[in-house]
């Protein structure tokens, strides 16, 4: 079983290169890591079930076997727990029939009592067992049909199915968000290790021994944690499935858009999985520097309201007329991208002394949880600082509310965040809301204009670690007429941006670190900005 001390050491760009011999060919691999990662670095994928780069090594699945030349001849070792040593001789299935057979046998054992649930399993299509079967398994069936499946796990959940086979542990309600299928479980204990070492709340355990092992919570307890949906991601099989995604869509029908979650200043990297123009789920996108493979339930389940309660798109004539009269207070919300901020700065320049930019949130700023949340609800706070926009002067605005005639809020739900604090803003006669949702601020405003949500726009944000990250647009906008905030605001300023990149170039004029950057030069894992002040 795992402990806290054997977290795998992952290769970095600075890893020392050592020479090892793979299938009698000399290759240079990162020297400070395990064999599995080292082989991956040179393009050799090793099938594995229990190994996860951000969980302690457990080494119980035995799927990643390779042969190593040792003092007593060639031995089978597990690649995930063997450190790389200079000059070691490794044999993979490419040259060794023994490794091939061993992996095949391991695979066969793993599937002996694994149910044929793939047609009804939510994991089918992204299941590690399926992948490994295609790579290492492909056994001919050696099970006698009259014997069939024989499930020995949790005796409380056993039953005999209509074919007379001993089955058990189907759709066990293990918590408010997760369903457990004990029969599909291969006892890799990834979920146990996740709850133990990452979530730091040991709610899951392996009960029983050998063939009778099954995943369980403590008696009378439920699996309930802010990060509990991550166990569905780490689960290599369909044992842990999320209730919200249950039977919603087969995973191969989903398209994936890599983007950034704009509900927290850590800017968790996510995949938006969408089909038929709506988001079906939000998955973590691995970024070693930001959220690794984890996202919180708050971030993950936020997508469920993205398509609901939306404001319709409208013409800008009224808003232009309304802006003409008196002093304008522009409030930028935390979900504004760098592009939106560039447009806001442009609008301020056009309006001159008449306008003033405010920024911030009425929400409480929490503390980082050390996994995938910084606790700061103002996602682009570092970007505000970078662009020279105040990120925390809403109190000032409320105090001086009577000075202004027009309040323009962009992506800022001031009344929804704290109605009491925002009450003073009602003194401003004309309140214009540019918002994706028909939220409290839109309801309180005199003019409400629909814009695109952050999941539907291209853009950039700077997270609390000063990492410039790229948002991509998922084609899930419910209304084709809706436009991104930067387009709308720049049109108000009279110099409309036709693309996000044009806005980004404009942002380069306000913040010198952004000048000269192209979207292509921002990697999927972000770009660390030098000399930022986050």
């Amino acid at each position: 079983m795992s402990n806290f001390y054997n977290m795998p050491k992952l290769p970095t760009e600075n890893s020392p290169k050592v020479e090892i011999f793979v299938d009698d060919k000399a290759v240079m691999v990162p020297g400070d890591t395990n064999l599995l990662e080292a082989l991956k670095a040179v393009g050799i994928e090793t099938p594995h079930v229990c190994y996860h780069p951000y969980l302690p090594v457990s080494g119980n699945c035995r799927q990643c076997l390779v042969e190593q030349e040792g003092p007593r001849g060639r031995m089978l070792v597990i690649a995930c727990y063997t450190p790389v040593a200079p000059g070691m001789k490794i044999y993979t299935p490419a040259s060794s029939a023994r490794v091939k057979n061993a992996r095949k046998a391991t695979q066969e054992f793993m599937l002996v009592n694994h149910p044929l649930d793939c047609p009804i399993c939510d994991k089918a299509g992204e299941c590690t067992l399926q992948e490994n079967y295609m790579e290492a398994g492909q056994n001919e069936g050696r099970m006698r049909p009259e014997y069939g499946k024989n499930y020995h796990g949790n005796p409380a959940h056993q039953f005999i199915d209509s074919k007379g086979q001993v089955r058990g542990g189907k759709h066990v309600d293990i918590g408010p968000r997760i369903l457990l299928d004990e029969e599909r479980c291969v006892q890799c204990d990834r979920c146990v290790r996740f709850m133990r070492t990452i979530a730091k709340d040991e709610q899951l355990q392996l009960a029983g021994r050998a063939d009778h092992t099954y995943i369980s919570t403590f008696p009378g307890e439920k699996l309930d944690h802010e990060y509990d949906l991550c166990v569905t991601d780490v689960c290599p099989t369909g044992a842990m499935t999320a209730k919200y995604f249950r039977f919603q869509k087969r995973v191969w029908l989903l398209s994936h858009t890599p983007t950034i979650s704009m509900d927290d200043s850590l800017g968790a990297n996510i995949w938006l999985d969408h089909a038929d123009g709506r988001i079906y789920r939000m998955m973590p996108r691995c970024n070693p520097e930001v959220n690794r493979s984890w996202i919180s339930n708050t971030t993950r389940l936020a997508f469920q309201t993205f398509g609901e309660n939306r404001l319709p798109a409208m013409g800008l004539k009224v808003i232009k007329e309304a802006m003409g009269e008196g002093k304008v207070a522009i409030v930028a919300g935390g979900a504004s991208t760098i592009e939106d901020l560039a447009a806001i700065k442009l609008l301020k320049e056009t309006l001159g002394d008449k306008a003033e930019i405010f920024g911030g949130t009425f929400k409480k700023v929490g503390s980082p949880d050390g996994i995938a949340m910084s606790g700061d609800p103002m996602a682009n706070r570092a970007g505000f600082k970078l662009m020279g926009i105040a990120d925390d002067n809403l109190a000032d605005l409320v105090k001086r509310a009577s000075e202004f005639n027009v309040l323009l809020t962009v992506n800022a739900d001031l009344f929804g965040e704290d109605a009491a604090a925002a009450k003073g803003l009602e003194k401003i006669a004309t309140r214009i809301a540019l918002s994706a949702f028909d939220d409290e601020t839109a309801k309180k405003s005199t003019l409400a204009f629909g814009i695109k949500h952050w999941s539907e726009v291209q853009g950039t944000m700077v997270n609390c670690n000063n990492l410039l990250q790229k948002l991509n647009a998922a084609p899930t906008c419910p209304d084709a007429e809706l436009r991104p905030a930067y387009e709308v605001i720049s049109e108000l300023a009279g110099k409309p941006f036709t693309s996000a990149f044009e806005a980004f170039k404009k942002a380069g004029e306000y913040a010198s670190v952004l000048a000269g950057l192209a979207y292509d030069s921002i990697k999927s894992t972000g770009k660390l900005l030098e000399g930022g002040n986050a």
Partner: protein
Amino acid sequence: MARVIKQKPMNWVERLYVYECLRGLFTTLKHAARGFFRYEQLPTISYPEGQPDIPSNYRAKHRLMLRADGTPRCVACGMCAAACPAHCIFIEATKSDDPRIEKRVMRFDIDHLVCVFCGLCVEACPVDALRMDTKQIVFEHRTREEFVAHLEDLTNWDPKDYPEDAQSQMAPGGTKNAEARKVWGMEVK
């Protein structure tokens, strides 16, 4: 290598052409006369009234097989839709109320205007739920929407039309339904 077929040279009567021409006319007249007096011996079918005899393995309109309790066998795995080269199958799944069955089909639409009747969906089905043996080859409707066969339409078939098929007889109304129900209703511990 090309096969050379040597034709028998025509004799002088044939080369005269007149005789052969009359022979051809006689064949036509013979069939026309048969149409008048021995209608049933004609090799062609007078289509709308007469229907062709279709073998059971002919790829005709789809049907969804039923379990002993009358629910569709389909578990909405989407294999047929994945195999479909014409993308004409639309499936939505939902949770089943039956404790033995986890997933059940909520929507199963086949657009027969798009369908190419290749039969790949039938081969892809892991639970033998989809078949194309209804022998129904005529699709005539007034609107495009009516060409889309829905779940009710696909499951609306009579076991009596499939007397040789044991699987069909397990559906409600079939001869083996009572037997299948016994197995289906097996004690669940």
